[in-house]
């Protein structure tokens, strides 16, 4: 191979000593996402303290998050199902860092939670709480902890977090 060309590294000193110039820009972009009928109902049910999903009678799946069509069978989804709000930890992390690389002393505990009543292996992304990070295990049984009804807004955060089953 030939020697690599360019890719000249810059160091912090280059900036501190004013050896290089930069131009900066901070965009302010705002969006408002429509939910569609299925996620709309999902959020409305969360506001009522219920976790719901939907079925496809063709492939016999019960999925969460609910969708308007089965992406595998490519046909409209069928019945709505109310789940009991329990599940098990499929996988988790103890995250000590934020998106902008700030450090956290107490970790966030994101997890994929397999939802009881949904098809095998079907879960959602959420957070674990009320748990010693050292005690979290794959397969651990958990239940949803809801915000008090007046504080619920029709959002995924209406579930505060998931905690170990007693």
């Amino acid at each position: 191979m030939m020697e690599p060309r360019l890719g000249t590294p810059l160091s912090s000193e280059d900036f501190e000593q004013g050896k290089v110039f930069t131009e900066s820009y901070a965009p302010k972009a705002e969006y408002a996402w429509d939910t569609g009928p299925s996620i709309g109902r999902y959020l409305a049910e969360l506001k009522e303290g219920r976790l719901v999903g939907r079925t496809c009678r063709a492939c016999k799946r019960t999925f969460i998050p609910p969708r308007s069509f089965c992406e595998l069978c490519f046909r409209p989804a069928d019945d709505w199902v109310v789940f009991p709000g329990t599940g098990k930890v499929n996988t988790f992390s103890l995250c000590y860092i934020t998106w902008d690389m700030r450090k956290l002393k107490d970790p966030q505990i994101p997890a994929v939670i397999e939802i009881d009543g949904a098809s095998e292996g079907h879960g959602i992304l959420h957070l674990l709480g009320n748990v010693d990070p050292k005690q979290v295990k794959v397969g651990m049984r958990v239940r949803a902890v809801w915000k008090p009804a007046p504080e619920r807004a029709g959002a995924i955060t209406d579930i505060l977090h998931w905690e170990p089953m007693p």
Partner: protein
Amino acid sequence: MSRVAIVGAGITKFVRRAKETAPELSWAAAKAALDSAGMTLDQIDCVIHGTAPDAFDGVHMKGEYLASGSGGWGKPYTRCYVGGGTGVFAPIHAWMHLASGKFKTALVVCEEKMSSCQPHPQGAFITIFDHTTERALGPNLLWIFALEQQRYMAVHGITNEEIALVSVKNKRNAMGHPSAQLGAELTVKEVLASEVMAHPVHRLMVSPTSDGAAAVVMAVESVAKKVTRNPVWVEGVGWALDTAFWTNRDLYYPRYVEVAARMAYKMAGIREPAKEIHIAEPYDPFAYKELHHLEGLLLAPKGKAPKLLADGHFNRDGGRLPSCPSGGLLGVGNPISAAGMMKICELFWQLRGEAGPRQVKGKPRKAVAQAWGDLMQVGTVVVCGV
């Protein structure tokens, strides 16, 4: 269908923050690839540019922004983008242009300048999570890798020591790569002593953010045989996409890689990849990912890649199937699309015996490169041979 070969390759250094602009980096790699092929821009029929989201650069229609540097003006020019899978998809995109008979030569350039995005390019990644059902939870990119690694470890009973060995191997291999950002001689202990970012992921198990570019020149058989005595043939290509409902599938195994790999192997006439492939360049943005992808590429049985790694099977020197002889993303660096293209360049140099201190011994003849991207569900695979 025309046979297609790679006839030249070029690369910049991979660095945390480059003085050069994105078009300047593109130009450096593109010109180096042309020089390596002994060709000039007027001999190029079409130009393909692979590059990641516009959000990195804060430039709308980044393809047009980069086109001057990749020689795209006045030619049939396409920017292609399939997330982190782009670097290995760009040559597949070029292959379509050439195998179809529409064009005879293509310049394929992949560039990324991640450093422009402040305070950290992670910010540009957050929008991969579902806007309504996930983003309100405050996710960051590390989450999905940590969740996937944890699942992979839990299903197979794999330890973090076994995974840390990938960082040791790749950062060591990268010491022989003149473009490398993070070549180093490390121990498993040192990798595991590095800061926990998102358990089980430690800092030294994560590839860096980088600026850089890499490029190849590709040509149909009639041209390839005229411009070089050592064309590297693109013998198989494959790509696949799994569901973006990522919490509804088991993260322990990259099914999308297997689908893409089977497609590429079938085209290349490879029946037993673990025996027939001499060199692999699987995508390794995180240490566990190399093992995960080696399994998806059918180069190790499910859950067995860590054991094979520990046995030296994937070592550049003395291994049966050297994996990431370049040093990979963990060692050379990870300017997204350029990192995938760096792997294609590595196959080119390795199969021509031009890899210098990284050269795999025993005249390797078949090699595979793979990249992966999006919300963990894109697989792109290229098999090359001489």
